[in-house]
């Protein structure tokens, strides 16, 4: 983690107003320990309090960092080979009109120890010199304040490609800081990689150890997560990688809503805590797939407050303003596997039992009521997922079981 931030230090005021002049170039030499950067750091330096009408290169500067010094864009110069972080004067060697700001802000990648000081000068008080070139002089009074922030950069995880042509094909996964600074990489180190299959079941392996990039065979759709420390901040990012696996159900596979259905099932499943050994902690989740009236796209929508109980859920009414005719699939999950004992405390009713995969009569009647009362089309269908199967059921008629693992194709549908 970064040191306490922001780091602030103050150069105390000089005894009186000082004008660095040609005859007294070293009269106000002051220095103050500022901070050490044992590791490379990407910082923002704010310097304020300079009460001056003139400027001179090196009047106030942060000396240091002795290690890796790169960058510097505006305001403070940090590109000096001796490690000086100084006020940046684009035309310091020219006697240009004075446009000095009272506050300077700049960023740099630094390492080592930084000192702040008022530097010596050269000149006669009216005319200062940079080398042999005459430049305007500074005067200053009061204190000058330096503040340093560690810059939060963030992490981005990417995959190429983001959809593999078939399960098992490799993709290149990498994690880097969100941006580079002046062509340089902001310091970071990887902590961990995790792969979360969309339906929590799969065989894809995450990148190993603390590598920043790897080839990974993608066996099922899921999300690759990376944890890293970027410039001292703990960061996490992820990318979803798709691997198409046919379900074997032609209705589902040919539906324009297929991806939205699977995405919603995955979202609900992960929110249902289906592997919690305390079964009473599991929560059904429910929602809808609807067709966006504007774009025509099929959109998954999970009711954020729909997970009421281990054996009950409420899909809600969907996003506000949608007509009932937009809703095409009522989608929810039963967070149990065949023959699992239902938790009596969270599956309220008059009798306990073991779970058997099927749409419940309540699922059936709910869809029917939505059609009858809320204008949901009669073509709407119900989709349920439990630990082993997806079940698709129409308004009336037999349900269709779809195993989550397609043994014929050898891949995980979800």
């Amino acid at each position, binding site marked *: 983690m970064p040191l306490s931030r922001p780091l602030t230090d103050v150069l105390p005021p000089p005894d009186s107003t000082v004008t660095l002049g040609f005859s007294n170039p070293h009269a106000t030499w002051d220095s103050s320990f500022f901070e050490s950067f044992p590791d490379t750091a990407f910082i923002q330096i704010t310097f304020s309090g300079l009460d001056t009408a003139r400027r001179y290169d090196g009047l106030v500067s942060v000396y240091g960092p002795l290690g890796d010094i790169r960058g510097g864009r505006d305001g403070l110069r940090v590109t000096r080979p001796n490690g000086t972080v100084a006020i940046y004067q684009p035309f310091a060697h020219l006697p240009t009109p004075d446009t000095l700001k009272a506050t300077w802000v700049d960023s740099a990648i630094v390492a080592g120890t930084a000192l702040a000081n008022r530097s010596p000068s050269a000149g006669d008080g009216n005319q200062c010199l940079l080398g042999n070139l005459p430049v305007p002089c500074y005067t200053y009074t009061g204190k000058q304040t330096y503040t340093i922030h560690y810059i939060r950069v963030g992490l981005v995880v990417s995959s190429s490609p983001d959809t593999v042509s078939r399960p098992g094909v490799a993709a290149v996964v990498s994690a880097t800081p969100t941006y580079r600074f002046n062509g340089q990489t902001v310091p970071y180190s990887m902590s961990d990689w995790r792969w979360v299959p969309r339906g929590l079941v799969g065989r894809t392996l995450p990148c190993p150890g603390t590598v920043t990039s790897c080839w990974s065979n993608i066996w099922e759709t899921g999300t690759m997560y990376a944890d890293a420390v970027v410039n001292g901040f703990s960061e996490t990012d992820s990318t979803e990688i798709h691997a198409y696996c046919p379900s074997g159900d032609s209705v589902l596979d040919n539906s324009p809503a297929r991806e939205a259905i699977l995405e919603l099932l995955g979202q609900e499943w992960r929110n249902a805590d289906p592997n919690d050994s305390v079964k009473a902690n599991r929560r*059904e989740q429910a929602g809808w797939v609807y067709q966006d009236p504007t774009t025509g796209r099929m959109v998954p929508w999970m009711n954020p407050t729909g997970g009421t109980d281990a*054996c009950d859920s409420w899909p809600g009414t969907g996003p506000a303003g949608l007509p009932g005719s937009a809703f095409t699939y009522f989608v929810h999950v039963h967070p149990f596997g065949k023959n699992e004992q239902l938790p009596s405390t969270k*599956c309220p009713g008059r009798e306990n039992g073991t779970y058997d995969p099927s749409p419940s009569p309540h699922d059936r009647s709910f869809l029917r009521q939505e059609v009858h009362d809320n204008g949901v089309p009669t073509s709407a269908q119900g989709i349920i997922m439990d630990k082993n199967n997806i079940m698709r059921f129409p308004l*009336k*008629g037999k*349900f269709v*079981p779809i*195993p989550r693992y397609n043994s014929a194709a050898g891949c995980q549908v979800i």
Partner: protein
Amino acid sequence: MRGRRMSPAWRLFLFVFSIGVALIASPVKAANREVASVCQPVDTDYDNFVDDYRTIVSGVDSFSIGERSSLSLPQLPDDSVTAVSDSTTCNRAAIAYGLNLSVPDTTTSRQLYVVRIGPTRYAVADPQMNAGEFLINMIFDSSFTTMFAKVAR
């Protein structure tokens, strides 16, 4: 001998004996008691309940095969799975169902889903006997004497 009076001890024995007989006989009496159990009216919900068993019974996929195995159901064509609407069968189903509840109860009147699955099986559920959204289903033989499975679905 006629008119012989019983001794107090004998009367006490008969009293205790009669109480015992009454207690022993009461469950039998309850079990045989006429309750007003009937079949659910055949409607869309009932049809869907039947269709869900048709999926299992007629399916040739691994899901259906597994379900038939665990529920002890035969493989049959769809038209062998039908909703029962005669009250005699539903009454018998209600008694069998009630006897197999965690707390046996054959006195409560029920309105049941009863599905005849070929000549050898019945699936029975009471909409009032639930675990969350699931109904407690029981699978019986044709005489309602053997329960093969009891599940929440």
